[in-house]
């Protein structure tokens, strides 16, 4: 059995346990679960027997208009396995558990997702905005964030008579 078949089997076993579903997108297995099951899913995926997905490449979020998805790109430094885990979260109260206990590298990534989407990561050691300043209003990468028009953004004041 090849690496991918083992991974598919493990992912399907896990999906049955956490009430998720497995699909394939352009050659990569995607495991979709509810946001509440994310920490269980990820800690299990990190220690899959034979095909551990123990390296966190990326953590980000997607705005799908009616809900958010938190996306984790997992793989391993010691094998070809790749897995994408997606957790759906509610738009009104986007809260998921932090994975900084599993991967310390998630620290900045979770702060970025909080900064851009307003997703709260419970248990994060220092959940503050990372790119934008602290009193910035709104979350720019949400689809309903309105960017101001060029005229409003312009700080050039019109010339007064006699100037």
């Amino acid at each position: 059995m090849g690496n991918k078949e083992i991974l598919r089997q493990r992912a399907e076993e896990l999906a049955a346990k956490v009430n998720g579903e497995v699909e394939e997108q352009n050659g990569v297995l995607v495991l979709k679960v509810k946001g509440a099951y994310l920490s269980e899913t990820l800690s299990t995926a990190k220690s899959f027997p034979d095909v551990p997905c123990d390296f966190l490449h990326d953590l980000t979020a997607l705005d799908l208009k009616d809900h958010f998805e938190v996306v984790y790109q997992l793989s391993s430094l010691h094998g070809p396995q790749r897995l994408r885990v997606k957790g759906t979260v509610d738009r009104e109260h986007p809260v998921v558990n932090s994975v900084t206990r599993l991967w310390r590298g998630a620290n900045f990534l979770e702060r970025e997702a909080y900064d851009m989407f307003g997703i709260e990561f419970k248990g994060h050691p220092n959940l503050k905005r990372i790119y934008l300043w602290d009193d910035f209003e709104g979350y720019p990468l949400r689809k309903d964030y309105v960017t101001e028009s060029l005229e409003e953004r312009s700080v050039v004041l019109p010339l007064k008579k006699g100037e």
Partner: protein
Amino acid sequence: MGLERTEELSLNMGPQHPSMHGVFRMVVTFDGEVITKIEPKVGYLHRGLEKLAESRTYTQFIPYTDRLDYLSAPHNNMAYVQTVEKLMGVQLPERAEYLRVIFAELARIASHLVFIASTALDMAGWTAWTYCFRDRERILDLFEMSAGSRLTVNAMRIGGFSRDVPPEFWPALKSFLDDLPDMMEEYFGIFYGNEIVMARLKSVGILPKELAENLSITGPVLRASGVQYDVRKAEPYGIYDRFDFEVPVRYGCDSYDRTLLRLDEIKESAKILRQAMRDIPEGPVTAKVSKIIKPPAGEVYHRVENPKGELGFYIVSDGSPKPARVRIRSGTFINIQMLPIVALGWKIQDLIAIFATLDAVLGEVDK
């Protein structure tokens, strides 16, 4: 009876400081001379590229990617256009694939030369800086004669290359590769073999293997901690599986090994360049793609080995001419997380050295 200690001193390093490689800021807390806490602050160069991408077409976003890691612009172009090509299923002409490899490896050498130069400068070594910049100039000349610009090259298009390189490109490339061993001998003499450099870098800032893996560290920093992992070998993109090269690895985990590893990588890049020069076929450099790029709905995460770490693009398409989401996973943004952990207990000059070996480019960190 309490312990006697000096008053804690908090110091702002940056954003405007020559050793910060751009506009990076750290709030460092000292106990006497010893660092007890570091808080990195990023975002001074944040341009909101991910948000900008959502209002541009797929083609219009290519020049923006040049501004990510501006010391190795072809890598950023390549990562982006290959992601879109993967999404669309475009097959490239052979010559375009080879040209991409040549541009990418030249950019890797140029970027590592800047790394050696700026690390030397952070150790107050002016002469090494001038040597490296003298040689990098020849790579920039190669870019200029084929794409028109030196830094933000913007030569790649979705489906190939903007245009073929001129005939004078090949002799210039060959003479550069012929001179490269002598240049590296010089860097070794003036920088790596220098006693002061060794004293400042050896066993400073140890990053153990387990910590590096847990922190999602990638690129030369990971390889200097004893993990032989390179995206070019682990998950070959483009035509990298055709070339014969080694993935250099060092086990010292310290700043000196991180620096030395870059020199090993220049050697391997030169090896790839020679093979690509030998094998490149004649032919067109652009595949036939439609004028309006409209990838089918779907999503792709694609990564390439940037000189600084792993650069990944995660593009979600909804079938319209504009991407629904472009996510940029930049290597150094994640790599600088090691600073607050690794630099604890060292003094301020060691912090400068450790930060220098991360080779951060703030265009990539801040996006």
